[in-house]
């Protein structure tokens, strides 16, 4: 059979449009008469809104509409359903959106935001997730600072018996790892264009990475059935997980419906970096039981994710972290606890790997630490523990098409590592001895 794609160099279908400058990103869609948006954001990381007066803002020449939470048909949204489109009584992070304005031009919109009178009673915030977990810590939200997985404060993975495993170990290797927060810094800022059509439909040009999820959210927020909202997406100027949350579509939609005019909201780079979702930081504690000959027989991990003020994708990110933190190694006894902890930061969310990247970072640092403790070549340690065909993961999945050993053999060649004959002879299909 002739293969047209596999093994062939295939050009990007959109490559020539990219180099011609013809690719039309959302901000490149220009509709005459489009209004611009600016938002009033919380100046404090935690506080109670005492009063908000937007009457002066409404009178600024060029201002077409001002909205507060009172104008939003359904003010709650997000992956956890716990975010506010526009803040009501409380703000939980600096930059949380409180009111928005649509105006004929940016100057008018900025002046209107400037004229909004906001009175906030600042409250004590908490920024460190380890502090936020302590009893008596300032509460980010009234229900507490830890996301509840049903009636459990953490996601648990239990495989075998980790305490029995530690008894079989010759040495115990412990490690604490911190992975800092990161911003995607995708090249295209968050932007949305909402255009009311004569047919009664609303067309939204979106940068979404999760368009059909976001379509349902937007419909719910604005109170329209899905048959009345058309989202046009697919051309994304970089996302890396930043665009799995709705940042601008819902606001552009609300203001377009209120004004009957096309509305575009493009976040500034400053807003994007300070207030949009990001990869929250991680604190990870490992305790591994290892035999003298380099077999991992038990792994215990406690991971804490700084989730910021709202749930967003953090609970899912912690799930995936827990599922995979035991690494690509066969460990017969595993116990993992993953905590999703709220702090007074912007909501964290997905970024390239949903919690797996920090797990791999910490897990591989730990492998090097174990190799050092044993006086063993770190390659040897990894080969010894690598999954074989048919072995079971800590989440009780039996693996097929396993190729880690073969991948490491190929990698060794690429980086100039001379493997000893017994590692060269190893294969994923060989059954593990003992």
């Amino acid at each position, binding site marked *: 059979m002739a293969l047209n794609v596999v093994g062939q160099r295939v050009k*990007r279908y959109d490559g*020539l449009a990219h180099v011609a*400058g013809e690719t039309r*990103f959302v901000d490149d869609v220009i509709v005459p008469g489009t209004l611009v948006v600016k938002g009033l954001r919380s100046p404090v990381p935690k506080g109670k809104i005492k009063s908000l007066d937007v009457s002066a803002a409404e009178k600024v020449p060029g201002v077409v509409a001002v909205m507060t939470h009172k104008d939003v048909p359904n003010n709650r949204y997000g992956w956890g359903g716990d975010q506010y489109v526009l803040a009501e009584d409380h703000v939980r992070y600096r930059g949380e959106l409180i009111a928005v304005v649509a105006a004929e031009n940016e100057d008018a919109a900025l002046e209107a935001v400037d004229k909004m009178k906001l009175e906030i009673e600042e409250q004590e915030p908490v920024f460190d997730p380890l502090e936020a977990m302590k009893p008596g810590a300032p509460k980010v939200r009234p229900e507490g600072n830890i996301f509840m997985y049903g009636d459990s404060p953490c996601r648990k993975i239990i495989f075998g018996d980790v305490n029995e495993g530690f008894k079989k170990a010759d040495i115990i290797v412990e490690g604490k790892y911190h992975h800092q927060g990161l911003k995607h810094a995708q*090249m*295209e800022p968050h932007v949305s264009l909402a255009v009311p059509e004569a047919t009664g439909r609303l067309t939204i040009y979106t940068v979404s990475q999760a368009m059909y999820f976001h379509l349902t959210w937007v419909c719910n927020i604005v109170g329209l059935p899905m048959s009345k909202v058309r989202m046009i997406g697919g051309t994304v100027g970089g996302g890396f997980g930043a665009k799995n949350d709705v940042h601008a579509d819902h606001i552009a939609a609300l203001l377009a419906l209120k004004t009957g005019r096309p509305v575009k909201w493009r976040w500034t*780079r400053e807003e994007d970096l300070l207030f949009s979702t990001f990869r929250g930081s991680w604190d990870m504690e490992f305790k591994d039981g290892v035999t003298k000959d380099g077999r991992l027989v038990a792994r215990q991990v406690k991971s804490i994710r700084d989730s910021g003020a709202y749930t967003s994708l953090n609970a899912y990110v912690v799930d995936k972290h827990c599922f995979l933190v035991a690494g690509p190694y066969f460990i017969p006894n595993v116990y993992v606890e993953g905590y999703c902890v709220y702090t007074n930061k912007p909501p964290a969310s997905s970024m390239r790997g949903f919690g797996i990247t920090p797990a791999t970072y910490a897990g591989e640092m730990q492998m090097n630490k174990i190799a050092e403790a044993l006086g063993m070549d770190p390659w040897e340690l990894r080969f010894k523990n690598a999954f074989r065909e048919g072995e079971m993961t800590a989440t009780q999945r039996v693996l097929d098409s396993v190729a880690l050993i073969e991948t490491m053999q190929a990698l060794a060649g690429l980086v100039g590592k001379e493997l000893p004959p017994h590692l060269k002879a190893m294969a994923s299909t060989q059954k593990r001895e003992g």
Partner: protein
Amino acid sequence: MYTLELKVNGRAYKVEVKATTTLLQVLREKLGITGPKVGCETGDCGACSVLVNGKLVKACITNALTVHGKEVLTVEGLGRPGAFHPLQLAFHEHYAAQCGFCTPGMLMAAKALLDENPKPTRDEVKEALSGNLCRCTGYVKIVDAIMAAAGEKA
């Protein structure tokens, strides 16, 4: 308001601007030329890079009135389908564009380099791209493409 006269991609324009209007705003909002992108509006990312009288500038921090009487070249004027510039073809050939958002600016920075230095070293290419960010490629393919285009020109 002030009257600004400029040439963009060989065509003459006359537009009304404020004292604070940027070249990027003129190109995108007044002329509908959207190849140059709004990435940061602080001159840091390079997505708005264009040539003014052959010199590379960040259009987002270039005051529009400073280009009065000058010639601006954007990606739209670099080459069109059927008559692409070697850089454009090399970017396509070498997978130098992924999401494509930085590509128009990258191409203009590369054009400015090759106009001045037709046979750059890899390090000189990297230096020339130091004002242009890409978050998809890791830059290797972009440098490969520019090196290949420099070869073609020879």
